[in-house]
């Protein structure tokens, strides 16, 4: 009851300032075993505790929540409003990418890297790069697989770029929208401690797709085992970033709904990877039988013709 009361008070600005001035007062009432708020670097077995401390125990998170509300104050029809979504420097973008590729177990990606400064630069350009990487790699891999065959004529397959773009951008924007709507709905029923804004969810999804860029390049290797190993590896990495971000948001909910939500997130992520692999990259063992024709004249690529019959 005390933690619920403290949560309600956190909604009011002056009370939040009071909390920020007295961090010790909040931490004692929340956790049953008394934990010191400074104890954030020890190896806690439960990542949830650490996030509770990180979220409510320190005054940093309170201040950043307040600042986030004050930052985007320009009206939405001005250019400055959209500039607030691109307020990142080079090193910040690189840090966020590094955080998505090497997820630290127990650290929440949003709290650690985004810190109430979600940007749209990362998601947009990572998706654009991924679209072209998948299309180009798929094209290259098909070229190498079918290279020796006499009936093969290389085509650039430009249509696939549009299909890749639609799929990846739809995934990176619609799934966060659905997830955000779902989390908002559950928030209205169950008082969750952790909640994310729509842009933070888009950010997490966008940066979690980064690992697929080198994976797509390595998928050019025409070995089925190698491709599946790569896929599982990248799925684990980006899936773990997503799970560690969203598990605290649904943890306080009904157990089955929480597990179902996280399972759906992972399932959709896996579907994207498997679908891209299946559609853009031909299977390596696909060996079309050479048509048995009565020794025709085969025009080779360099323009000369090979007459198989004797002259």
């Amino acid at each position, binding site marked *: 009851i005390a933690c619920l009361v403290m949560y309600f008070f956190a909604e009011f600005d002056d009370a939040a300032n009071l909390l920020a001035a007295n961090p010790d007062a909040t931490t004692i009432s929340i956790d049953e075993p008394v934990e010191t708020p400074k104890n954030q670097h020890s190896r806690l077995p439960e990542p949830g505790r650490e996030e509770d401390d990180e979220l409510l125990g320190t005054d940093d998170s309170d201040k950043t929540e307040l600042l986030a509300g004050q930052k985007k104050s320009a009206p939405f029809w001005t250019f400055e409003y959209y500039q607030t979504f691109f307020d990142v420097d080079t090193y910040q973008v690189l840090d966020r990418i590094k955080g998505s590729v090497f997820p630290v177990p127990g650290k929440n990606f949003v709290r650690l890297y985004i810190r109430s400064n979600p940007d749209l630069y990362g998601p947009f350009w990572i998706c654009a*790069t991924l679209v072209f990487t998948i299309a180009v790699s798929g094209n290259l891999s098909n070229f190498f697989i079918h290279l020796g065959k006499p009936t093969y004529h290389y085509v650039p397959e430009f249509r696939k770029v549009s299909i890749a773009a639609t799929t990846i951008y739809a995934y990176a924007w619609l799934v966060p929208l659905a997830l955000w709507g779902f989390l908002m709905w559950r928030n209205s029923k169950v008082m969750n401690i952790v909640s994310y804004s729509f842009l933070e969810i888009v950010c997490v999804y966008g940066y979690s797709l980064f690992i697929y860029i080198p994976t797509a390049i390595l998928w050019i290797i025409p070995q089925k085992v190698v491709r599946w190993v790569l896929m599982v590896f990248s799925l684990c990495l980006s899936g773990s970033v997503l799970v560690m971000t969203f598990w605290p948001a649904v943890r306080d909910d009904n157990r089955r709904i929480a597990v179902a939500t996280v399972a759906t997130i992972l399932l959709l992520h896996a579907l994207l990877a498997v679908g891209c692999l299946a559609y853009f990259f031909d299977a390596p063992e696909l060996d079309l039988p050479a048509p048995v024709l009565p020794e025709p004249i085969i025009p080779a690529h*360099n323009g000369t013709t090979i007459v198989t019959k004797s002259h």
Partner: protein
Amino acid sequence: FPGLADVSISQDIPVEGEITVPVGSHSPDEDYSTLDEPVKDTILRDLKAVGKKFVHVMYPKKSSALLRDWDLWGPLVLCVSLALMLQGGSADSKDDGGPQFAEVFVIIWFGAVVITLNSKLLGGTISFFQSLCVLGYCVMPLTVAMLVCRLVLLAGGGTISFIIRLIVVGAMFGWSTLASTAFLADSQPPNRKALVVYPIFLFYFVISWMILTFTPQ
């Protein structure tokens, strides 16, 4: 304002001067004077401006001529010629062929607009059309590469011609990226330069890929 309470215009001070504004002074907009010139002069002047910009792209130095007097004629000509040269390749197979004319157009113009928006959102000080102008003019090395590729392909396909095309397209891609970066990099905030240069790199990479994978039917 208490000090001004007792200021008044006395009746016997004559007011002098001219009310009319002299016309035709040092305004940079010389529309009035160019209205009477022959059409040939107007067209030649514009062509000279476009040609001068092409020369600037070929030898990219930090000159402000490209930025100050922007025009979109050069990019239009380059885009149309590139899109035309990319036709006629594997056009029979409907789904798997090369890019259509409209697709090349859309990629170049939409890509340039998105890059410009990106650099402005990141805090760049360059104006919208200046950036479009630079990005469009810097497509010129790639158009030259497309021309060379088509000529090489006339001589025949095969590995040697592919290697030649790869080297030519690679060199022109590097030239385009370096030229546009030379013109655009100064107008960006210093700790975000890489964030602005990367989309330009991606843009010219995609165009280079389209050129390199062009195969005639």
